[in-house]
């Protein structure tokens, strides 16, 4: 068994009367790329927020990067975890540029009373170049398209130099071309940095082909987990989504079958 960086045991999360996670146990090894799929409301986002302590456990245990996830460790842990949330509506008049937004990724690690250095600004520019946003770096963040905004969010998480990368539906609400670009970028980043990555999606067409393991979630629980080959069978997916699933031979994001329902 390799180095376990995420360990959840019987994790339960509830938002008032709604139980979002019902006794989830999961172990993730360092460097693994895991896809988490399931229908809307299955608890996928909540699972990610348990890892970075934005979602609070009401029962069970979570251990991430060798430390127990709790209120005392939350801020320290989040500095080491890059989190790309679902695309949000952003005020187009917000007084902050793309470059400044990406620099926010450094702020947690920098700590209070420290200002970003020239080298860190240069690094921000390098990361913006990597995600293909150099030409938009001075633009107000609210002027970006959905796909550009998600790439900026990925850049912001990257400048954090995270040990764990959490991606929550990074391709939702963007056009197919932008989806392909974001998926290529995520695969490129994993091949370069080998970060432990949890990738959440409800849309199988946007599942990166580099997934080493798939976790299938339903009604707040892990329903099945295994290799993509085992988990992407037509019958398994039909049961997961409780709907007709077609699995054409053509690949959606590369290696995996294209699935629609």
């Amino acid at each position, binding site marked *: 068994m390799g180095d376990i960086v995420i360990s959840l045991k019987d994790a339960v999360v509830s938002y008032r009367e709604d139980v979002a996670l019902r006794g989830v146990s999961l172990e993730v090894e360092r460097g693994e790329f895991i896809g988490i799929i399931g229908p809307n409301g299955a608890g996928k986002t909540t699972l990610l927020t348990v890892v*970075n302590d*934005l979602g609070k456990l009401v029962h069970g245990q979570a251990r991430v990067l060798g430390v127990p996830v709790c209120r005392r460790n939350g*801020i*320290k*842990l*989040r*500095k*080491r975890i890059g*989190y790309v*949330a679902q695309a*949000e509506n952003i*005020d*187009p*008049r*917000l*007084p*902050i*540029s793309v470059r*400044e*937004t990406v620099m*926010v*990724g450094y*702020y*947690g*690690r*920098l700590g*209070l*009373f420290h*200002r*970003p250095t020239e080298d860190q600004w240069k690094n921000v520019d390098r990361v913006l170049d990597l995600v293909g946003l150099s030409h938009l770096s001075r633009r*107000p*963040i*609210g*002027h970006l398209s959905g796909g550009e905004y998600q790439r900026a*969010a990925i850049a*912001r998480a990257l400048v*954090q130099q995270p040990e764990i990368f959490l991606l929550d539906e990074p391709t939702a609400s963007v056009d197919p071309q932008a989806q392909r670009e974001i998926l290529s970028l995520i695969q490129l980043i994993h091949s370069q940095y080998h970060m432990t990555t949890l990738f959440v999606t409800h849309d199988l067409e946007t599942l990166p082909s580099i997934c080493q393991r798939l976790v299938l979630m339903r009604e707040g629980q892990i329903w099945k987990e295994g290799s993509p080959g085992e988990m992407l069978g037509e019958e398994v997916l039909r049961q997961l989504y409780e709907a007709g699933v077609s699995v054409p031979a053509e690949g959606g994001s590369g290696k995996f079958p294209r699935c629609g329902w």
Partner: protein
Amino acid sequence: MGMDLSVFQYQFMQNAVLAGLCGGVTCSIVGVFVVTMHLSFIGICIAHAAFAGALLGVWLGFNPLIGALIFSLASAGIIGPMADRGELNPDTSIGIVFSLMLGLAFLFMGLMPGARTEALSLFWGSILTVNGGNLIFLATVMVVIVALLVIFYKEIQAVICHRQVALAVGIPATLVFYGLLFSTGVSVAASLPTIGGLLIYSLILNPAAAAYQLTYNLKRMILIAVAFGVASCWVGVAASYLLDLPSGASIVITSSVIFGLAAAFSPKRKVKKWQRGPAS
């Protein structure tokens, strides 16, 4: 014909100019926080809480500034979690606290014996009669707010522009957020005797909202808001003295005119038109 500047020899006018500077700077800076976070209603609520607290002070015979400070900080401490936890729609919960504060203000006013002159001055404010104690408090609050802004600029920028992101990258975003709400409370309390309880919030909102129309750069927005806030106070003081108008009203009307001009000539209007365009 030269302007007669002899009026500035008088202590009351020097105090008014200094109070305009301190009040304009302080209110405009916290205005940038609440306008950028889209929390204007929270600011209005805190302002009315300060007003109620000051009236309680007048009624019970203690310093109104202390009452304003306690009520504004308490309201910030109550409203923040109510808005965050989402147990009620934030607009509903803040609206309830807002109406309660207004009700308390009128209750304290009604229970006061005598002529209520001091209480009425808290309604409208009077920058021309600001006393040394109030001025020192206001100047101290200004220095503290400016110092906090300079020291914690990067955290404040992250929280007011991207609060959830700030939380996710390991910034103590909740602490910063409550710090900003409490700063708003203290600024309102300090400016209350000068600007007046019913008008103070306009001086917080208008200069910042005007600056928000004019730039995409936060540092520039703060500087523009401060310039607008101080200009509103000084033009308001001059109009009040020269035309014998109520000072608080003059200041607020000046700041509203500045906002109207900024909105009319805002380069960001193109963005709104662009958003409504064929892409939407």
